[in-house]
């Protein structure tokens, strides 16, 4: 059976700059069951996000919002916005590693 990703269980996964110094992303889960999986701290926590994006786990903020079936993640951007090594000015494509995270079977 093919693996299921967070993106498979979501209506939308998106990322964006939040001001010049932060990146924020949201998992809009399809239903309460998808939300339960995405919001499970034993599956998705600050350390997992830090591993996906190579940032300090202490700088990662996670907001779990059951009323919207949303998990929101924010962290300071590692590369200065618009600088020589910034390849995503609006950080609009940074959700992909999160969306492709395989959920526990």
């Amino acid at each position: 059976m093919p693996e299921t990703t967070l993106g498979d269980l979501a209506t939308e996964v998106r990322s964006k700059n939040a001001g010049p110094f932060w990146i924020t992303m949201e998992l809009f889960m399809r239903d309460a069951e998808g939300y339960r999986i995405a919001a499970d701290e034993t599956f998705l926590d600050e350390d997992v996000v830090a591993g996906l994006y190579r940032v300090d786990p202490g700088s990662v903020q996670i907001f779990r919002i059951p009323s919207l079936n949303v998990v929101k993640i924010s962290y300071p951007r590692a590369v200065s916005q618009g600088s020589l090594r910034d390849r995503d000015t609006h950080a609009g494509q940074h959700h992909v590693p999160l969306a492709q995270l395989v959920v526990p079977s």
Partner: protein
Amino acid sequence: MTSENADPVSILVPSGMLGAGFPEETITRGIALGADVIAVDGGSTDSGPYYLGASKPKTTAAAVARDLRLLLRAAAGAGIPLIVGSCGTSGTDDGVDWVAEIVAGLLAEEGLSMKVARIYSEQRAADLKEPLEAGRIHPLPPLGDLDGATLEDCTHIVAMMGHEPIAEALSAGAQVVLAGRATDTANAAAYALLKGMPAGPTWHAAKIVECGGQCTTNPRMGGVFATIDRAGFTIEPLDESAACTPISVAAHMLYETANPYLMREPDGTLDVRDAVYTALDERRVRVEGSRFHHAEQHTIKLEGARITGYETMSFSAIRDPLILKDIEGWASLMHVVFTQRVEQTLGLTMEEYDYDLRLYGYNAVLSELDPSTDPPREVGVMLLVRATDQALATAVAKVANPLMLHLPAQDMDYLPSLAFPGSPAEVERGAAYEFVLNHAVDSLTPTAMFRTEMGEMHDA
């Protein structure tokens, strides 16, 4: 300022950005619904440091004029004020003057007479030395303490105004307010606060409407209309086929915010943790329970950008599977040969220039964060060079040119020719900038850092 008997205030927001365009019906419908004020954001830092650093607008004058013509006509016709925040993208003094010039031209063309206020928010580094030395400038995460040299390095510094300077201009009779850098919410909040609406619902409504139709089920269709009263606010889309739902409205608090519950404004903090979103019907949402905690110390956030160098770009492309099967090996060889050639020909070491080699179609966007390693079908190779001046950056990029054209795969015993998309190969990008300020000033008064110029009525 809050008053018990004040009438509700209705805000028409045509779009998330002046110059982005909106259907004409958005305005006629908003006016018919009884708008008391039109508010629109003219700027943002979202597109990076160039627009502040160079003090240039992101939008083109024709697009801004097209939107403003409709907004000025509507405001004049209905006798309601028009407020534009963060003029000219970054809100520098040039940006305010640029929009003011467009407005003056349109008023003359349309035969309208309106009193225009310009609020300038640009700061001189020298003027910020005193608060810096007095310990009145504090870093906001993730940045650290500020030093005077960083201020001096900035080509432009703006202070983000809250609602107060805008409300003051409206009180003084302004019918059109063109504000320099302002918080995204200040332009929509100012009139309602002036008319005595409570801060909680007002700031929350202002946040929800700041991106226009983004809080609706069809973000591409026109603007939104919010009515603020003593107990909360009601919001609806101006396009009749679109809808606001409790989810679409609540979800907008997530957009471009690091924290979805608490949002700092100069005057305090919006707190939506207890906000309740209720559908009034199929396309209108009622929001109650928003709170605002007034801060003991009013603060003004600074934004500043400095030049990091000058950039030249070169771009070529690879389609041959014999190279693409080990594109990482090709890139490694490029790094070695390129840096050697720069040292041989220009005598430059890596300390004197910098570059980024990006493999578009392979992993340029996410680089080492990319979860996929699938072989690409074609790859665009972008070489971005930065040096202390433009001529040097271009010289470095030209040294790479034969390699961008002929560098073989590591196991090839002949020279391939790669696909340049055009001639010339190099594109000079001019000065490159970075944001260096994310600091808040303990303000002496909410308006002290801003300068308002009240224009005369234009004669019809």
